[in-house]
């Protein structure tokens, strides 16, 4: 695969998702309500503070000695002659973590443009999050590498994300678990983690990688871009010598009617397994079609699985 073709495709995608008409279409989107992080023990411990503070009223509880008198509900005392104190939901940052798989498989088939699609989708999601005040951070999943963007908290810094994504090229083997583990070591602020990968690795390895995020309290969204070239192999010639772009392994196959049928069944089973596993673990999952474009994913696929609204 000519690397320049991938880079050009990716940059073109980033240009498209930066255009004002496209961005105006995203203005009405926002991330759906995230799980509260206020009552998770030990999540964000605050020294010498008995209860969380914030603006969002959570409940009332009977007054107990030691409670902060500032939170006593004096109106209730006056009307009901009961001493109750107000409790609040903590208001903390819920950052968006964009984890991109940039392995060689994301560049194959070339016509599908999976990496460019993933980068464009990541940039668009970052725009939506930043517009609503949520910080964004992106990382390229690689073996122990530290290709991670800074935490972006303002819309003005969105170009930095684009500059981070633009030089990406699909290369090397998939290191999903290692990459996620390395990323988790760099952040202490859970939020929504969106994993953009083709998950073309052993199922156990992929599941382990996503479990790491779940175990650390992240809302996990798994997005598996797939294009027509990967989904449908009927256009391939009958006699094939297949080469795995990540491992270089060669395999000769006959692409006859039975072969086409077996491949189609394998693709379906792969996607179905991912979906079933994710549903069982409260992980949102979608397999957007790269041919349909980033906009279709943002406006149809992600709202359908409850990530955006």
């Amino acid at each position, binding site marked *: *695969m000519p690397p320049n073709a991938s880079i050009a495709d990716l940059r073109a995608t980033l240009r498209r998702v930066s255009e004002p008409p496209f961005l105006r279409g995203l203005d009405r989107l926002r991330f759906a309500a995230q799980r509260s992080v206020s009552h998770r023990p030990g999540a964000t411990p605050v020294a010498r503070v008995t209860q969380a503070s914030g603006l969002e009223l959570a409940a009332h509880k009977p007054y107990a000695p030691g409670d902060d008198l500032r939170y006593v509900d004096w109106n209730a005392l006056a009307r009901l002659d009961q001493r109750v104190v107000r409790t609040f939901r903590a208001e903390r940052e819920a950052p968006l973590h964009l984890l991109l798989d940039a392995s060689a*498989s994301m560049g194959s088939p070339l016509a599908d443009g999976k990496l460019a699609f993933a980068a464009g989708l990541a940039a668009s999601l970052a725009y939506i999050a930043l517009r609503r005040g949520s910080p964004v951070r992106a990382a390229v999943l690689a073996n122990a590498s530290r290709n991670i963007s800074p935490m972006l908290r303002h819309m003005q810094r969105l170009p930095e994300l684009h500059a981070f994504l633009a030089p990406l090229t699909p290369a090397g083997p998939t290191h999903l678990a290692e990459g996620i583990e390395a990323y988790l070591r760099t952040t202490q602020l859970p939020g929504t983690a969106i994993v953009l990968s083709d998950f073309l690795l052993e199922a156990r390895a992929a599941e382990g990688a996503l479990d790491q995020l779940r175990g650390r309290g992240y809302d996990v969204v798994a997005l598996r871009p797939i294009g027509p070239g990967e989904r449908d192999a009927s256009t391939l010639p009958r006699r094939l010598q*297949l*080469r795995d772009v990540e*491992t270089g*392994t060669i395999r000769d196959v006959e692409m006859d009617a039975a*072969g086409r049928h077996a491949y189609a069944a394998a693709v379906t089973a792969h996607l179905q397994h991912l979906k079933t596993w994710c549903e069982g673990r409260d992980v949102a999952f979608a397999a957007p079609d790269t041919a349909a474009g980033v906009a279709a994913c943002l406006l149809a696929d992600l709202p359908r699985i409850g990530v955006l609204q």
Partner: protein
Amino acid sequence: MMLRFANPEAWLFAALLAVLIVLHLRERTRRRVDVPSLLLWRALPATPTRAARLRPSWLLALQCLALLTLIASLADPRRDADPFGAAPTRTVFVLDTSASMQAQEGRESRFAQARRAVRDRIEALPSDAEVMLVTAGNQPAVEVSPTTDHAEALRRLAVLAPVDTAADLDAALSLANRAAERGDRATRIELHTDMPSERLAAPWRGAVSVFPVGETDDNVSIADVQVFQGRFDDPAAAHAFVAVRNFARREAHGVLTLRLDDAIIGRQGFTLAPRSVGGFPIRPLPGPGVLRASLEVEDALAVDNLGYALIRPQQPLRVLAVTDDVGLRADLQRIAGATPGLAVTVIASDAYRDAADADVVLFHRVAPPLPTDAAALYLAPSDARGPFPPLGQAHEVPVVDWLPEHPILHGIKPDFPFRIADARILAAPAWADSVLLSRTDTQDIPLVLAGTAQGWRRAVVAFDPVAEGLLRTERVDILVLLLNLLDWLAPAADDARVVSTGSIEVIDGLADLPRRILDPHGGERHQDATDPPVVDTPFVGAYRVEANGSAIRLYAALHDSEESDIGRSAAVPRLADAVPAALAPPTLARAGVGGALATLAAALLIAEWFFARRQA
């Protein structure tokens, strides 16, 4: 039995086998494709690549077999089945040269197509094969006798041209069959024609290979030109009628032009519905002459767009009636008074000396010797010493037989009401035909005799028209018979005739001197005085026969609906097996298996497609 190839050069296409194998090998080489992961391909069994050597493949075998079969069919293998082993063969080409072969099919005529086909066939024959060429016009002719000199045959073929007549295919095929009956070689008859094979006589079907040509039905013709003019009528009283027929299955448009002796007397546009006839009456006619009708129409066949008719000048007929009967005298005077151009002079029998410049001498009940200076009509001759002595008398005799085409009976057909009350029984002279005949159980009774004796026409009526009621309304047939007799006895001195192409005309009005004949195409030939005075008219147009300063003109036209109806369904050649003529005349001997091989190739291709589809 020996197998030979008519087109051995077709085997050059066998090189395509190599192309087929190369394509097969190329198809067998694997194309390398990068995939994101082999995880999704684990369900497909691995088929390790071997060297690109040729491995057995049913499809390749079928493809090669189909290609070889196709090439073999193109090579046109022939199975010689004659008892002479590899003996050379003879092919008799019968080429239709009829008028319809002039029809244009696109840019060339049917005849040109057929001639090209014959030429190709001759060129494809082995050098030791004999060819014979027979043309089938109105008179079949052997243009090339059996010969192995193909170059000469091709030269003769190149100069052939169609004629403007119908074809006598039966006669031509009989000629060809005579060559086939010679047992020295296996012989094949090939007929190149535009005649539908179902119109071929039954004995020839299956015995003759037919190579049909022609398809278009685009033709409009002059079906007939008729002039209605009595023998004694003035041209101003005559009228003509032209029938134009559209043979096409679409509407036809054109212009009909009428000329009288080259002067245009009328032009009329017309539109004819598909497969219909249009009639165009022409009246009045300006005078005597040759009426020529021609069509200006865009059709495929031009030769039938012309028609002729003659408008005769009024020709007086002088009749000298020799009779003592007052009744006949009165009747003849009344007839002459009512018939323009007919002059009757009546004298008593004892006053007769000679014809006295009359055209016809009419003898009533008397029978002097045949006059030597005029035609003669004898009515009820009674003189036992005359040229027609009565042998007896018959009463109430019915008419039982007649010569239907004789002009004497013109207008009296079809049913004869004659029943003669009283007739003489005459002995028919050798020079006379019995035009009208009655019969008893024992003998024939000629009622009207006609013929030529001493250079003049003669006729005898065995009954007395006066006694039978010449001018009685219910016996008008007797009056018509009398007028026809007078007309026939002194025919109009025409120097022109209208004939149909292909007819053979006897020119009897010229002196027995060498004759010069000019045909419509400008050709000229001469006849000696000893040659029979006949003229063949194979082409449409005017012929001129000259002798000793006088001339007779013939105007020939094609009025043949079978020739003009040129539409044919597209047909494929129908080949007949060739067998030795000596064994099974008239069939010929040699069979091609190219058609069967082509069919086999098609079947193999279908089988290959079927298996390939199943394998896919």
